[in-house]
């Protein structure tokens, strides 16, 4: 695969979209559809989470099925912060990222010693371990999770209205996407993409491959933690469900639907999947069958791998 390069129309498109999102909450309010502000915030947060997985999977080539662990850990840190009086997002969110990043450091340091099917299964197993650890710890609320007494503040500004949280999530997503966009073209981004394509050659060029992979894995984990902390603010609960491996699967499906290794793949995937869920779940309780068939169809009719659907070829 080649290095990621943004399409020419991407920048104006993103700016137009950003402007549209800026007026979305008052517009929804005016339509009497305020409920959908929460839904839109959810999409933004999952876009962030899926993008963090895309960094690890699409750019770093690490097939992790345990990303939900970091996502969920971020949510728990947010809840614990609120419990202990740290309600400023400027402090709590970086804290959530740090803890999720540290967790990723431990998981990555062990898992990245392995390859292929082993790596997939081990990340999965570690995520499950995190799940059990959180569920069985009574101080963390066990099966019930940790409720948040309220929402965070942003430097004195309350995020308790749905609109305020929406703009915070939008801000976070915009910052992260800008960062990821820069990263893709910077030394680090080129390094991890090259490692994805040919690990042995990079080693032979003198790159300490393990270290770059680990940093990429940790970065992805920290960003997932950020998304988790935001989600806990939206739902008011740090739930063990966020840690479950099916959540990792959902994030994975988002990235793949949106485009692996394409900067906005996670964002598009989150938007498509959550909207599909919202619309289809209204028609039939059994919409999962349709989704499952869609996934299998994608695999069967994209013989050169899923990424090929999006105009890329495996080198």
């Amino acid at each position, binding site marked *: 695969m080649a290095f990621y390069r943004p399409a020419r129309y991407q920048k104006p498109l993103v700016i137009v979209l950003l402007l549209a999102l800026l007026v979305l909450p008052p517009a929804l309010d005016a339509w009497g559809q305020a409920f959908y502000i929460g839904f839109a915030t959810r999409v933004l947060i999952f876009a962030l989470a899926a993008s963090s997985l895309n960094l690890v999977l699409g750019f770093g080539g690490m097939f992790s099925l345990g990303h939900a662990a970091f996502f969920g850990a971020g949510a728990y840190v947010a809840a614990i912060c609120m419990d202990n009086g740290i309600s400023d997002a400027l402090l709590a969110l970086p804290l959530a990222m740090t803890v999720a990043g540290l967790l990723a450091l431990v998981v990555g340091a062990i898992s990245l010693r392995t390859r292929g099917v082993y790596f997939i299964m081990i990340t999965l197993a570690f995520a499950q371990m995190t799940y059990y650890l959180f569920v069985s710890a009574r101080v963390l609320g066990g099966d019930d999770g940790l409720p948040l007494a309220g929402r965070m503040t942003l430097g004195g500004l309350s995020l308790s209205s749905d609109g305020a949280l929406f703009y915070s999530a939008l801000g976070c997503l915009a910052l992260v996407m800008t960062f990821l966009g820069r990263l893709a*073209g910077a030394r680090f981004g080129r390094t991890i993409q*090259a490692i994805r394509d040919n690990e042995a050659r990079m080693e*032979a060029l*003198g790159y300490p491959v393990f270290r770059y992979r680990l940093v990429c894995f940790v970065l992805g984990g920290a960003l997932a933690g950020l998304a988790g902390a935001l989600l806990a603010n939206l739902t008011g609960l740090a739930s063990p469900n966020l840690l479950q491996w099916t959540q990792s699967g959902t994030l994975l499906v988002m990235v793949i639907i949106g485009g692996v290794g394409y900067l906005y793949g996670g964002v598009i995937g989150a938007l498509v999947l959550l909207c599909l869920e919202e619309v289809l779940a209204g028609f039939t309780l059994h919409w999962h069958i349709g989704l499952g068939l869609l996934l299998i169809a994608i695999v069967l009719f994209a013989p050169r791998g899923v990424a090929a659907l999006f105009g890329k*070829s495996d080198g």
Partner: protein
Amino acid sequence: MAEALLEVRGLSRRFAAVDALKEVDFSVDAGEVHALIGPNGAGKTTFIHHVSGALQPDSGSVHFAGRDVTRLSMHQRVAAGMARSYQITNVFLGLSVLDNVALAVQGRPDAGGSFRFWQPVSSEQWLFDEARTYLDQVGLSARVETVAGNLAHGEQRALELAMALATKPQLLLLDEPMAGTGQEESGRMVELIDHLARHVTILLVEHDMDAVFRLADRISVLVDGRLIATGDPEAVRADPEVRRAYLGDDL
């Protein structure tokens, strides 16, 4: 005589019940072109893997530029000044020729590391300028923007060499650089290696005996995991044990 740049002492490695390498003592002096030859399956590639750090020996040691590198990983040895090319072409097929070499420049210890997350590489002109000089050396300056996957086979081999050079090695490990090249291409490759040999020490593994005898200052012969002879080309050519091992072969 100058001190050996690379010195291998008593290197042994078993796979299952087979001795892949047995008590190999071997050295490359600074400035020379040292060729390693031997029949198929003699253990040449295994040997290169141990020198480059892709594999770890059961016993024995590898010394490079006066320091024991036996336990160092591959990338650490590259950083210490050892570069290799692969028997089967191993470049980034999806990237442009220039990007391939720029990656190699960027990976060098003196390039400042790759933990840079913000500044675009496209603004670091010097990486590409330097990459171009290596491409000049291997004769690929006309193809810098071509995607590596679209190069001819011989050009890809040359690109490999440029990438190896870009790591500024003291020692270049070339694993069958002529493999799969046509008559004309291999002629050009021999010239190229001959040219490079003025700047860098080379350990050459090769089947093409014409090339070996044209390029090598010294030749070592590996048979069944054992080093049976080392010496200048004429001595090796005359060595009875070598003749026996190669009976029916090109020699």
